[in-house]
């Protein structure tokens, strides 16, 4: 028996779902603004060497200059161009945001799903470990670890943020897994002879894509803020150019007292904008996971 019509095979459902998801996010007004802002930052980061007017570490300019045609945002106390630093700083923030956000999401997915699926003693053990990470205050832990591993560069920052940031996501995913686990199709997969790992990652996981995506953007936002915080406290590598180190040096050189508001204001605004864009995207993702949250779908 041959196929009656050989229509082009439709997209695999996972891909079709992704495309539908992207379309839903795009139709959401706030999320679209978020995507555009994020896109601008990504373009800035990727093209930084070509867009930035000077090398960010070139300190051959006058010190603490006010804004001018040569230096739109002025120069730092060390004589570097602020605009160039700002543009290059986007690279670090995005790298840390997506790197640490991604790693902590992967950890929370693996741990959260297994935790939600298993019963009995293994579940209790995971529960204990996750609770341990939840009760330890995040920022002090971050500071301790970052101080301990200081001068490891940006990868240490990423690792620290990822290690301290996955536990909440794991909890959320665990409860969703536990509820999906009770659905008949999971039981049916067991009846089809599927083994646990495949049930967890092939049957259950795709049904919470939007939750995971939401968790990822949330974790990325937290990571960007945490990175800026650590750098601002001088706990990172203060020789790299990032928005956090810009704030750190601006504070050190009393930029506000010298009237160089742009030195504090510009990196602060960029951090806020980037974090806002990710949060806006998350509104759109909420619309996928819970259609009731789609704008205008209810009259109340």
């Amino acid at each position, binding site marked *: *028996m041959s*196929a*009656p019509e050989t229509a082009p*095979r*439709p997209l695999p*459902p*996972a891909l079709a*779902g992704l495309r539908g998801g992207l379309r*839903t996010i795009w*139709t959401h007004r706030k999320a679209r603004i978020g995507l555009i802002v994020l896109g601008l930052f990504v373009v800035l980061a990727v093209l930084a060497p070509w867009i930035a007017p000077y090398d960010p570490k070139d300190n051959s300019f006058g010190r603490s200059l006010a804004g001018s045609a040569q230096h739109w945002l002025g120069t730092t106390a060390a004589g570097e161009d602020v605009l160039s630093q700002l543009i290059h700083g986007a690279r670090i923030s995005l790298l840390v945001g997506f790197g640490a956000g991604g790693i902590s999401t992967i950890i929370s997915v693996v741990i959260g799903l297994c935790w939600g699926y298993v019963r009995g003693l293994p579940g209790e053990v995971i529960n204990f470990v996750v609770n341990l990470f939840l009760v330890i205050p995040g920022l002090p832990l971050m500071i301790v670890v970052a101080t301990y591993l200081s001068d490891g560069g940006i990868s240490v920052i990423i690792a620290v943020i990822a290690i301290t940031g996955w536990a909440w996501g794991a909890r959320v995913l665990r409860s969703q897994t536990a509820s999906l686990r009770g*659905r*008949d*199709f999971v*039981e*049916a*997969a067991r*009846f*089809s*002879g*599927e083994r646990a790992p495949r049930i967890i990652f092939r*049957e259950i996981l*795709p*049904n919470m894509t939007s939750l995971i995506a939401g968790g990822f953007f949330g974790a990325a936002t937290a990571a960007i803020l945490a990175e800026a915080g650590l750098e601002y406290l001088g706990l990172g590598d203060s020789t790299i150019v990032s928005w956090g180190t810009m704030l750190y040096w601006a504070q050190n050189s009393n930029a506000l007292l010298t009237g160089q508001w742009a030195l504090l204001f510009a990196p602060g605004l960029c951090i806020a904008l980037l974090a806002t864009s990710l949060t806006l995207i998350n509104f759109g993702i909420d619309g996928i996971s819970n*259609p009731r949250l*789609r*704008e*205008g*779908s*209810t*009259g*109340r």
Partner: protein
Amino acid sequence: MTGTETTTGPRDTPGGEAPLLSVRDLSVVYEPVGATPTRAVKDVSFDVGRGEFLGLVGESGSGKSTLGFAITALARPPARIEGGRILFGDVDIASMDHEQLRTQRQGGFAMVLQAGMNTLNPVRTIRQHFGDIFAAHRHVAPARREARAAELVRRVSLGPEVLDRYPFELSGGMRQRVTIALALSLEPQLMVFDEPTTALDVLVQHAVMDTIRALQAEEGFTAILISHDLGVVLESAHRVLVMREGRIVEDAPSADILHRPQHEYTRMLLSHFADPRAEHVSLPGIEAPEPAADGPDGPDAPAADGPDGPDAPAADGPDAPAADAAAADAPAADGPGRRRPGAGLELRVEGVTKSFAPPRRRAAGVLAVDDVSFTLAPGGATALVGQSGSGKSTLAKMITGVEKPTAGTIHLGSTSIGPLRGRALRELRRTVQMVFQDPYSALNPLSTVEYTLTRALANLTDLRGPALRRRMLELLETVGLTPVEQYAAKLPHQLSGGQRQRVVIARALAADPQVIIADEPVSMLDVSLRAGVLALLRDLRERTGMSLLYITHDLLSARLITDDILVLHEGRVVEQGPTAQVMRHPRDEYTIRLLEAIPDPARVHGA
């Protein structure tokens, strides 16, 4: 849609006065954001006279609930009343604002919802619920409120002690009665019941419907009963509206609907309705096995044969071919095909007991299954009947090795199922398979039919590559989903409930199992799709020689596809024997109650 327009004129209402509710050219549209709008109710017109009991029947998606919500002004976005008028007395409901609506709830119209028992506030007692209503509307003097609340709960056949209870201390049926009493407390002129008993157990359903009928007769309020169950509606209502795809296709007194249905759709619905106690039972495309010569015919009503019009049109859509095939295949003279030679293993359940640990310390443990024994012969079909909580699903879980019995043994051939774990348990899946109750949750929404079936085949058989795919397509053909290539590529949401259940059945068949356990396989399906799935199950059993354990609370379907029956009550087997014989001459009091709970319009409207 013949006859629709002719039935919309003003009707004679009891007493000849103006109708209480008058709906004219009502259209309701759903406008979700980013999706195409759907018109759920299309130009519907009807009148309801004062004191009338009106039934509204339709299958899922017919727009009956949407209509119910619209006439009680509970329609919420994305639903919108697109056009038409709903006159209650001489006020147009559609134009009322929130405050007007709120005040008119007293002495106006009230609604009892499908999941009404879940609408009670869990942290407030029933007395406080009544108090809230009296305080909001002030129609009962404070001194009289206590007495009035007690009287209202008495009206719905509850004792005054429930007033001190919290909702979670009451059973589902009691809570539904409380919501009815709460609705009554406003002395409404019109009560709309939206599937008031669907979420309840069979016996409770019957009792709650009795209460509703008695109340309506005593209090004389006007009632609209919305239900998918034609039997319930015909038994209760004076007049019935049949709805299909947003339109009213028939509007006639109940007796006329029962005996002289005009529209073909009404006839189709009626044809899927039969009395399992009758001597011959048949639905379109499927006929019950003839009862063995079991002595004298009991004193059963021959009238019950009335509704099964044998020449009624069969279910349309892709369910039809299989139904026809089954009808053609069924060897009528040959008996039900039991004890087929060469069939596989016998399932033996001996003295099985299952108790669950108490939820709290010092609470009593739950004895879900209590000393049950039976044998399922190779190729046989046994029904396991009982209301929820009777232990039938727990029994199924133990047979499939999901739960371990506390005492007793279960054998399949020479294998004991109880101690199986891990690999051995996976081996068991080749011989014992399960058809799940809810086809909407039994398929992974993100997997194509092909993937679902392929995985089962890859895990449970040695087939690989092209042979596997061939077998996958063969399975689809077996369950009547043709053209197979097209169905293979579909996702669950592109299929109807009946088609999904066929996929679920195909998956269960992947490894050519010897025993299939079907847990309420048709309870979530529309009536018109049930017969097709039942016929498929029966046909498969006859062709493959597998045995079938059919778990249900629906006696009609049990009668149609099984040979033997076990009636379970509180974990114990209270009656067991050949299905036809048990239904026609039940001996146990519980079986008799179950049978009597089946709505029987003929009892009300004569033959």
